[in-house]
């Protein structure tokens, strides 16, 4: 899945755990305040990073990429409005934009506070006493202690050990309408074809010009990642610039085209 060149790219790219961290860092690099204008400013860089993530960062896993994509959808809205001031947005979309600004401000407060926490943490520890030896142990069992209860308790313990691969988190998302349309279209097509090429999918939306086709590719790409986030499809990309194959999940046997 990864070529040597993409590995070098990874080394040069600072790693961002989440989309808000990336966005804030892009805004702070430009010494801007968090608002719609600065968000529009950094959209291109944000998308470039997200794209590089999905293409190169094997370690992150596609599940994390989807968090970046969620925010990317809102950024595309912001960018579109900055380019076309007359563009009317729905209430839902307006809310999404406001919400993103809020989250960034919250995150900024926490990020700054965490610097202080780091400095204080462990610097001057208040210790609590050692296990009390001034009142030596007295054997004081409880009637509950028996082979049966202990055997039951250990089963509870084992049962509660978290499984290694937890399912993708189900956080609530209000989707951007355009992405919604793409998703339903994608879902329908998957129902029919079960296996299709990404280029074929983007093409099938009937672009009129090269520029429009490019927009389709971006939006389709976002829509596809959205589906991945929801665990509906699996994406297989053999090489960075090769076509991406889309499969419905749980059907690994029909990967090859």
């Amino acid at each position, binding site marked *: 899945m990864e070529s040597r060149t993409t590995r070098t790219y990874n080394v040069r790219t600072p790693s961002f755990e989440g989309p808000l961290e990336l966005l804030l860092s892009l805004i702070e690099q430009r010494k801007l305040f968090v608002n719609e204008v600065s968000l529009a400013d950094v959209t291109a860089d944000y998308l470039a990073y997200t794209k590089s993530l999905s293409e190169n960062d094997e370690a992150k896993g596609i599940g994390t990429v989807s968090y970046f994509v969620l925010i990317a959808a809102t950024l595309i809205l912001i960018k579109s409005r900055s380019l076309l001031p007359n563009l009317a947005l729905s209430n839902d979309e307006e809310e999404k934009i406001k919400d993103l600004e809020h989250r960034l401000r*919250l995150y900024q*407060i926490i990020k700054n506070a965490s610097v202080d926490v780091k400095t*204080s943490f462990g610097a001057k520890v208040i210790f609590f006493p050692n296990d009390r030896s001034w009142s030596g142990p007295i054997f004081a069992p409880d009637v509950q202690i028996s082979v049966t209860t202990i055997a039951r308790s250990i089963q509870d313990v084992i049962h509660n050990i978290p499984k290694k691969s937890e399912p993708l988190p189900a956080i609530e998302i209000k989707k951007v309408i355009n992405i919604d349309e793409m998703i339903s279209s994608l879902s329908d097509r998957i129902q029919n074809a079960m296996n299709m090429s990404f280029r074929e999918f983007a093409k099938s939306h009937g672009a009129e010009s090269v520029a429009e086709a490019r927009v389709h590719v971006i939006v389709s790409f976002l829509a596809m990642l959205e589906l991945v986030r929801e665990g509906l499809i699996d994406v297989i990309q053999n090489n960075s610039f090769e076509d991406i194959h889309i499969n419905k999940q749980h059907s690994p046997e029909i990967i090859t085209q």
Partner: protein
Amino acid sequence: MMPLESKIEGLLFFKGEEISVKKLAELFSVSVSEVDQALGRLSDSYVNRGLVLVRNGEMVVLGVSGELSPLIESIRKEELTKELSKAALETLSIILYKNGVTRSEVDYIRGVNSSFIIRNLLVRGLIEKMIDPKDTRRILYRPTTETLAYMGVSTISDLPNYEEVSKSLTNTLAELTTQE
């Protein structure tokens, strides 16, 4: 007759672990507010002493003054883990300054899933679960007394820039609610 704060002192010394204000009131057959006042006097009496009274919400415990930290560390067998990843630091900061926060609120503020980090903080004893008093189906995370001790503060409001940070957090969160 020994004053209440001295009785509490002896008891806390004996227990060697945290105890609730309510339990103290029961044990000494006094009111919670009497215990509160006595705890205040006890805490004041520890100025420049080797002990410190740490209070985390309704829980109190006696600890060794943070000034003696290097000495205690040198005689302690177990080593302290003082390293926290960036993600753990952020999550802990949210829980410290927000003091009572749900997992989805942490996720919302950080923009990523925090369940793995939260589990790690739970295992390290830096945070603990509590039932939301306003909605018993919700689970809130709050810092443990251990965390306050790690930070060298005897109460949450002694955290660096506490007033300012918690105020701006609350204001920003409030903005969001009014808008919805």
